[in-house]
């Protein structure tokens, strides 16, 4: 089966007037189905730029990117929006939920844009909230929830459309340690159910929950290692 994500020498150059920033330099990376990849690296090393490109929020300046075997080169904005809707689930550092909107409606949102009929939409959204343990909070407004709960709603929103991959850019960046481990436990659970995850983090402790770790430096990949299974080596949530 083809890789979920496959980049061949993708580069990203930001140029504004005189200034020219090479945020990514010929990065080639593949993520196979069911993998749980963590990305680390100093601030400004290109992690977010890479995530934006594999999330189809942006296109590379050069190189090729295949998502589930489909090359995104030259795709229209509409086609990219379609891919984001069907194949990608985002989890952000700042949660990015719609305020004054219930948890349920937030989770339903991707399905609305995916033109899923209302009844089916509701059932799927409730199921997704159940997966993150928030079924009883579905009518709560997002801005009345704690950070950890908000991030769980965001995860439910990311997985409700049954995407090929979940992309999380520093999902625990705004959370305390205990809450972070709760979130990571959810990611691990999802991953065990076969969902492919790519996650950016600063913290080695958080990266330790993943199966594979890539380190970026100055827009290039510095290292790419398989991690031992956390459950086998005892690096489970209790030891954080």
């Amino acid at each position: 089966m083809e890789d979920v994500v496959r980049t061949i020498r993708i580069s990203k150059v930001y140029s504004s007037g005189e200034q020219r920033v090479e945020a990514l330099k010929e990065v080639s990376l593949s993520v196979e189905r069911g993998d749980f990849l963590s990305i680390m690296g100093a601030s400004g090393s290109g992690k977010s730029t890479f995530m934006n490109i594999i999330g189809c929020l942006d296109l590379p300046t050069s190189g090729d990117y295949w998502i589930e075997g489909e090359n995104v080169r030259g795709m229209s904005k509409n086609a990219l929006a379609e891919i984001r809707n069907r194949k990608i689930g985002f989890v952000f550092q700042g949660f990015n939920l719609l305020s004054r909107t219930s948890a349920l409606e937030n989770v339903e949102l991707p399905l609305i844009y995916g033109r899923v009929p209302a009844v089916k939409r509701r059932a799927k959204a409730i199921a997704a909230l159940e997966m993150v343990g928030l079924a009883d909070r579905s009518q709560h407004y997002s801005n009345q929830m704690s950070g950890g709960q908000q991030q769980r709603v965001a995860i439910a929103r990311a997985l409700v459309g049954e995407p090929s991959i979940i992309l999380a850019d520093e999902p625990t960046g705004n959370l305390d340690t205990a809450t972070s481990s709760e979130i990571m436990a959810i990611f691990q659970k999802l991953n065990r159910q076969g969902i492919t995850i790519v996650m950016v983090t600063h913290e080695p402790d958080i990266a330790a929950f993943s199966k594979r770790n890539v380190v970026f430096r100055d827009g290039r990949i510095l290292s790419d290692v398989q991690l031992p299974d956390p459950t086998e080596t005892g690096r489970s949530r209790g030891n954080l």
Partner: protein
Amino acid sequence: MELLMSLRIAIRALRSNKMRSFLTMLGIIIGIAAVIAMVAIGSGASKIVSEQIASIGSNILLILPGSTTSGGLRLPTGAAPTLTYDDARAIQKECSAVAYAAPVVRGAAQIIYGNMNWSTVVMGITPEYLLVRNWPVIHGRHITPSDVEGSVKNCLIGQTVATNLFGSEDPIGKIVRIKKVPFTVVGLLDQKGQSPQGTDQDDIVYIPLRTAQRKLFGTQFPNTVGSIMVQAKSEQDLDRAEEQVNVLLSQRHRIGPSRDQDFTVRNLSEILGVAEQSSKAMSFLLGAVASISLIVGGIGIMNIMLVSVTERTREIGIRMAIGAKERDIMLQFLVEAVLLTLIGGILGMALGVAGAKLVSAFFNWPTLISAKAILMAVGFSGAVGIFFGFYPARKAALLNPIEALRYE
């Protein structure tokens, strides 16, 4: 389904900022209210003028003694006693385009009944006159040709005269004195209302022409008339009638190239047509001024929508990240703008109708509210929403999702 969803999002957005939504709407409310009220008042005015024109009679030429030059009046028109009863008879007989020629003499007089008296206009007429004026006698009888030829001292009275002299008494058969001469009231005229010049047309007494000439307004020229009213057979015949009257009277008055005309023919319908045109122009102008306020309201909508797009940049970014397409975002903001203007339009419509009714009630000014005007106003308010909402909506749809997500 998409539209329903956009509608729900829009309602939520508008409700989350009630005061601002209302103030934004206010521009449209005032604009639409102004358009509806102004058009209602303007069409009311047009209607009055049209009715007044109809009350004069249609396809009318007025022949006055005296002459005009192209530059203006030479003699005061009507000053020289040059038109005669026989001129009128000749026009009636010989001009093929003329339906009726009605000679008239006119004077002011005091009219007395019992101990009541009333100053009014007394006109000497022939039976044709009230046909030309399309003015029925509602009680009693008309002036007859034999009344005219026999100089009988009969009279018809208008509603205003009847009310002031007789009150609720039946005037038919009663004897009134006009300049001390006794006249029998034989007929009561239907209510006619105001003339385009604003005079009360019902404040009038009609007597047979010959009677007026010989027994009431005796002058040194006993056969002359003050004016002749001519009705053409149809609107198409009007110009031909004017031509025929000119030729005939020039012959009868022996007007040659060396002598100026001693009479003037005026096309009354034309003069009144100008009045109608100006009242139409007036209502158009009122509507145009009101439309400007609607445009100002639209600019207000645009302004607030731009603010709203900026405020909700992050929300737009989130929606884009999870798969909203350009047209989804566009639709969301367009629906919001149209909803604002439509609600404003409906409220404005209610206010405008109420305003027009108020003007009617307080200033006794007839207003005309047509369903067409209302539909147009509401449709127009929707169009204002689309027009002024388009740019902000497009701006939202074209945001870069990454930058929008990063927006604080």
